[in-house]
């Protein structure tokens, strides 16, 4: 079914379940990459994204402009993911996808890269992690990331900058990226 928020939001508010389901799918597609990158895997993210979708459907009446649906979902997802990233409850499930990949023999080098990136992201503060996730998940601008995080663009730029700096300094990623990048970072 068409998931255009302009038509689905009024229908979902009128009680049409198919429209609500279409919006739920769309919200899931928006939120999943953010949560998955920030939390280190789709399985770890699934619970959080499910909660995001529930929030979205529950608070749909508060969405003033249906055309801003995706940005609104990103705001909800960012809040949820920051909260989840601050807890250790997801530690176990975060480690599962990598183990699964290894077991499947899905390319050792690729798994190594994934593992290193996930580990490096995991060491970042929650808001830096989510800011970077928003950038890499949806290629958002600083202003869009600021909107999602509910902060000023300068703050978002600062979070991104510090997050990238920390990633460059991460020993695991330095080994993959190479020393040149480190020198470049200093410039």
């Amino acid at each position, binding site marked *: 079914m068409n998931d255009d928020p302009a038509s689905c939001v009024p229908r979902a508010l009128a009680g049409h379940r198919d429209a609500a389901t279409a919006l739920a799918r769309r919200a*899931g597609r928006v939120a999943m990459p953010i949560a998955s990158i920030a939390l280190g895997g789709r*399985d770890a993210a699934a619970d959080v994204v*499910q909660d995001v*979708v529930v929030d979205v459907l529950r608070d749909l009446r508060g969405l003033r402009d249906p055309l801003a649906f995706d940005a609104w979902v990103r705001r909800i997802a960012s809040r949820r993911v920051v909260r989840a990233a601050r807890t250790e409850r997801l530690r176990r499930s975060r480690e599962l996808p990598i183990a699964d990949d290894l077991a499947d023999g899905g390319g050792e080098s*690729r798994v190594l*890269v*994934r593992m290193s*990136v*996930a580990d490096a992201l995991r060491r970042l503060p929650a808001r830096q992690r989510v800011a970077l996730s928003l950038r890499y998940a949806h290629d958002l601008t600083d202003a869009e990331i600021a909107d999602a995080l509910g902060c000023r663009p300068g703050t978002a730029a600062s979070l991104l900058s510090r997050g990238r700096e920390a990633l460059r300094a991460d020993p695991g990623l330095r080994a993959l990226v190479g020393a040149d990048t480190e020198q470049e970072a200093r410039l």
Partner: protein
Amino acid sequence: MIDLDDLIREATEDDRAGGLPDERIAAAVARAGTRRRRRRVARIAGAAAAGTAVVAVGVTLSVLALTGPGPGTSGEGRVWTEADLLPWGDVYPFVNAVRERHGSETYELGPRYRDLPPHPAIRFPAGVSYSDAVRRMWRARNAGRAVPPGAEIVPPLPAGRVVLVADGRVTLDSAAPEGYDTLYGRVAGTAIGNAPPKGDLSLPRCQVLLGADDPVAPCPTAVRHPPRIVERSTGDWVDVPIAPTPVAPTEAELGPLTPSFAGAPPLPREEIPPFIVREADVDNTAPAEFRNCGLDLASVRLVASSAAGVRLYVADGVDRGHWVFVLVNGAPRSVSACGDLRATFLTRGAHLEYGGPPSHPHFIAGITADGYTSATVDGITVPIEHNAFVIDGAGRSGIVVTITGPAGTRRIRQP
């Protein structure tokens, strides 16, 4: 040289593709729909209560104009009498239960504190402790009396507070003298038909006013383990020590015999059934394991069910060493367990829960270690999926459960 952005984009390629699995979408839509309906009902009830309150205030003002203020008069001049007490019924002695339908089941639950209409408080004579006051109220209501002997109706307590201790006298919220659970906000109360509440009763600190000017922060819900206080025989209120969370075994220690609840991604979470909430979170009836395991009771995963309506849930624990198994049948009756069950899986292959008397269980539910595919009781064989099974109507021979699979065959006798 590899660009950092390129490296991360490559590493997160899988993360960017796709959305939430269909089963989780369906679960989310169902959960959101349930909440929307509840809020609509609450709004309608709120509007009705507001309308009633307006009428009541009008009538009260008229009465006041004729009679002037009297006993039980609030600062605003309202007279509170027995007629203002909320009705109570045959389940809870302090306030009527509400009937809520969840899925195919209808449950009688304590109402949410925030949904209660305005109601007066009851003040007890000096020298009556909080716990004794609750017991006096409980006995009075069981005897069909609204107010215990020697107590009096007084204006309501401040919102959120159910106990006021001032000038050596205890004042209780007439509808929620045992407080309300801080996770879901439901009014707690020892049911009619049970024994009266025993011992020194504790309450969340923020639901008690120790003196009229007690500077306590607002009392939120959605808090799992709030600080609690209890009144000692000396009349002093002291903090209740918080039980330490048990040390969880490590992943390596658990080994391959641990249930993995076969499912990647894991089964979707559901809102915890309200009957379980009542069982689990009303403090005086909560099994100790619920309080001590640090479990996330906001939602559970349904891992098995039976034709007779027995449903086996698993709640997420603090670690893999701790689960809670919650079984619900239509009775209603629930059975639950929580703890480090490694030894059980190693020695018996499964953890079993029995509904009904031990010699004639009307259902048996089990969580098995990995490697078992079917369970047999009394000639009935059911598959084991997600490491779980439920068997209805097991007779006397149901005391022996046989589980089989690649891991071997185990005959488990009821202990």
